[in-house]
């Protein structure tokens, strides 16, 4: 059980160091674009597939939590509404990617969806992680893809603020959103055990 518990904790640790990546990234941006980051349709497909993976994990997480049936009240209302949003994001990204869309991953949420407390803790970290991942990827997208991603990322931020408010922690901890690179997000998701 304790081992399961650490899945959610891994998110927290990733975001901690993610703050450093964000601050550094802003400073570096004015100096030079990292090589190979010039937006292109090929890079769009890669980054949107990364976003799709995040959405698959989130959609799976809320579906699993609702299936287990331990949620009540506002937490349940949150899971239902947010779960529907994540499903809509999955559908949107799959359509945008067409034949390039990745397959749905195998997911295992351990015990993180079994009680309202664990659900809230894990959801909070998953939503913060999604926002940080989208914000890091977005500047590398072509303008049309950026416009589309921007419609999703603010909704993820609303989810994050909502579950934070439910958890009794500040909904908006920072004046400037931390970012987390796709590599760090992937590492975090794999480390959590959610992704096989």
């Amino acid at each position: 059980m304790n081992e399961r518990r650490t899945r959610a904790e891994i998110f927290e640790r990733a975001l901690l160091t993610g703050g450093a990546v964000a601050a550094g990234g802003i400073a570096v941006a004015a100096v030079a674009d990292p090589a190979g980051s010039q937006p292109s349709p090929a890079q769009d497909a890669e980054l949107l597939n990364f976003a799709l993976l995040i959405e698959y994990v989130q959609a799976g997480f809320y579906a699993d939590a609702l299936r287990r049936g331990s949620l009540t009240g506002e937490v349940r209302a949150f899971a239902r509404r947010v779960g529907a949003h994540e499903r809509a994001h999955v559908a949107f990204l799959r359509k945008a990617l067409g034949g390039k869309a990745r397959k749905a991953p195998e997911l295992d949420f351990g015990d993180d969806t079994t009680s309202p407390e664990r659900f809230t803790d894990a959801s909070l970290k998953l939503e913060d992680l999604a926002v940080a991942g989208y914000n890091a990827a977005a500047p590398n997208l072509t303008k049309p893809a950026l416009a589309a991603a921007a419609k999703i990322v603010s909704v993820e931020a609303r989810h994050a603020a909502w579950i934070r408010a439910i958890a009794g922690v500040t909904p908006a901890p920072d004046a400037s959103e931390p970012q987390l690179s796709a590599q760090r997000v992937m590492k975090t998701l794999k480390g959590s055990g959610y992704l096989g």
Partner: protein
Amino acid sequence: MSDDLRLGDLDVDGALEEAIAALHGETRSAFLRRAVVGGAALLAASAAPAQAAIDRRDVAILNYALTLEYIQESFYGEVERIGALTGGLAEQARVVGAHERAHVKAFRQVLGARAVKRPRFDFRGATEDSDRFRRTAVAFEDLAVAAYKGQAPLIQSRAYLVPALAIHTVEARHAAWIRRLAGITPAADAFDQPRSKKSTLGIVAATKFEVMKPSSRRRPRFTG
């Protein structure tokens, strides 16, 4: 500058990260907030050397963002000064007000002499009554999210796109926070829509909150 705290610099061996991770989320937030003070400073610092070379279109976008931040900063600042709110609303106004001040400061630093002047506002009682505060704050925050979203694809330089996106989602967090306090769903739709500059400024004008456009010319302080 010692204020430009970077977690990575502090946390090379992960020891601090471990210690903080063991603490409550609130502590983590407080810790990250220190990094973000640095982050706001970095927004300005990153642009400072290139200031003279800001693309004309980006200057217009940054000044538009500054205009929206001025309104919010003045609104929450007045709420705090009047002190009519209590509990969760007072907390929201305090935290969000500090964020908006940080945004204003960052944009002003980036723009330097090209920054638009702060207008004068009259919020017509919206800062003095909790019900009117809630409704006004929900409108402002949702408007800010849509406005940033409308501008993001138009920003020319990555140096300004990155911080603009980082502010965009913070405004969305503010919006969700105040919506919940107002008893309406924090995330109504699966997709948030953008709003054009013209439409946004039309809404701002319709509020009549802005009572005096600052003069573009600097008046001499002393005559004769």
